[in-house]
């Protein structure tokens, strides 16, 4: 069953998040300029961008933990400034660092979280037992959190955030520091939240491969949205293929590709150029073959990482 959400166009899924011109300043620093964001209920949306882009600020604003300096936002049609309690009831939050008390056991931490969510009495115990069973934590119920590995601690944190079965999960870099096994387990838990209950998930990450399965990726840079589309559309937008070019002659080759009208985007990083290309691959290899001083040339399909560099970094002319 899909959760009831905010106002949306007729026939479209109701909105879990609807932000208009949402912004926040920290003193003279503009952390988030004016975010427009519409997240349909039940969708998986990735928020990516460099450090300082405004991702955490966005999440804290939507979670009602920060007041906006401008604009407005509604979560399931509830205003984040006027109806904080109403928003919080439908929210599950995972912060960058796990929010678990190291002195308490897994079970005690979950019980604490359940009570904070307003679940009292026997219902809290039932919710804790069900959550531990669902997340594979039952065997670790009596273990103090400080004795768990970072991976299990993070899974316990996810269990905490989902204990009250929230309609919207906001996760701020939930996989930082996790090994692939725990990362996989965490995403499988989150997939189940979407599949079984239709939960909406907004997450931020620096691992761009994690954003590939998202319904939509929102890229932030310098406090503003620089891209907002499904991953496939974002990838298509930077060209049919991407060339990585390095070596003393790289600048000249990129200029040559530009002159030939093949370049959709070009970005110079520490390890050379990433160039989004349109047109035939043969034409590119032909130009590259004739260019001197090319130490490395690889041509491959575009990735979200290429989009990230193209959209979030300041462009450099060859």
């Amino acid at each position, binding site marked *: 069953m899909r959760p009831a959400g905010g106002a949306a166009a007729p026939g479209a899924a109701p909105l879990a998040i609807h932000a208009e011109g949402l912004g926040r300043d920290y003193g003279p620093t503009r952390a988030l300029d004016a975010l427009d964001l519409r997240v349909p209920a039940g969708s998986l949306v990735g928020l990516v961008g460099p450090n300082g882009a405004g*991702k*955490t600020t966005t999440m804290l604003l939507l*979670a009602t933990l920060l007041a906006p300096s401008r604009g407005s936002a509604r979560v399931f049609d509830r205003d984040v400034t006027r109806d904080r*309690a109403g928003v919080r009831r439908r929210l599950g939050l995972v912060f960058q660092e796990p*929010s678990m008390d190291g002195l308490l056991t897994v079970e*005690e931490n979950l019980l604490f979280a359940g009570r*904070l*969510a*307003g679940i009292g009495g026997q219902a809290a115990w039932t919710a804790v037992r069900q959550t531990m069973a669902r997340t594979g934590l039952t065997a670790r119920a009596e273990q103090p959190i400080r004795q768990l590995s970072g991976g299990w601690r993070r899974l316990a944190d996810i269990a905490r955030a989902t204990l009250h079965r929230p309609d919207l999960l906001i996760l701020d*870099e939930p996989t930082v520091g996790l090994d692939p096994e725990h990362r996989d387990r965490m995403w499988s838990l989150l997939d189940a939240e979407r599949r079984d209950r239709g939960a909406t998930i907004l997450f931020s990450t620096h691992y761009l491969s994690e954003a590939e399965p998202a319904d939509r990726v929102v890229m932030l840079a310098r406090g503003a949205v620089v891209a907002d589309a499904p991953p496939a559309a974002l990838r298509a937008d930077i060209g049919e293929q991407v060339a990585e070019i390095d070596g003393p002659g790289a600048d000249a080759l990129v200029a040559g590709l530009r002159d030939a009208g093949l370049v959709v985007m070009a970005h110079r990083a520490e390890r050379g150029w990433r160039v989004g290309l349109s047109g035939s691959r043969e034409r590119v290899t032909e130009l590259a073959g004739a260019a001197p001083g090319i130490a490395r040339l690889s041509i491959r399909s575009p990735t979200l990482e290429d989009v990230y560099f193209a959209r979030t970094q300041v462009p450099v002319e060859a």
Partner: protein
Amino acid sequence: MSGAATVQGIVVRDLIRTTRQRSRLVAGLARPFIWVFLIGAGFNSIARIEGGLSYQAFAYPGGIVMAALFGGMLTAISTVYDREFGMLRLMLASPSGVSAVLAGRTLSATIIGGVQGGIVLACASLAVRLTLPQYAAAAAALVLASLTSATLGLLVAARLTSVENFGGVINIVLFPLFFVSGALYPTAGLPGPLRALARVNPVTYMVDLIRHTFGQPAEFALAVDVGVLVIAAVAAFGLTAMLFDPEQRFVGRKPERGR
């Protein structure tokens, strides 16, 4: 209903944490006994107390207040740890909001201060003779003293941003509050300015109230002690609610990754 569950959650967590921090618990209990029975034994021979009381009997109400004050205030001030280590944001994200968080922490600090003071009170027969009604009255006074200690602790924590200041708070806030209170010596003999400070110090009235229940000579009327403590508790809680900034955790820190 949701607020009650939140308060219950915070209280249960604080009680579990307290029982698992045994060294802190033992230190909190040892402090008043060391004062009353070690230092007090030496003072017995040199101190002349009004009413012919032994120094240990005179200092015992102060020992009870010491246990309650340190237990209650330190538990309340541990809000700073929660702010530093991310637990406070979890509590603030609760639908019940700031008021339930403050109420929960006040209640848990009151219980912890009351239990610590209660243990010292339960051992009172080692230094003073009390009747059962006197024990009961002292226990009631102890609840009020613990509540006031808890709210004073919350007030201190309201704007404290870092646990690095924690040791300083004990030295600059707790010790002066206790030493200028008549807990260890009568305030009548203090120099004028210190005596004036003692008069505006809520801890003075905690000690005085316990003295009333012990049947010892007291400086103020019973109603004055109760009135001052109730007003101090309400004022401290109200000020905390005004000063407490839920955004402090996010705004006051250095820029972090992803912000």
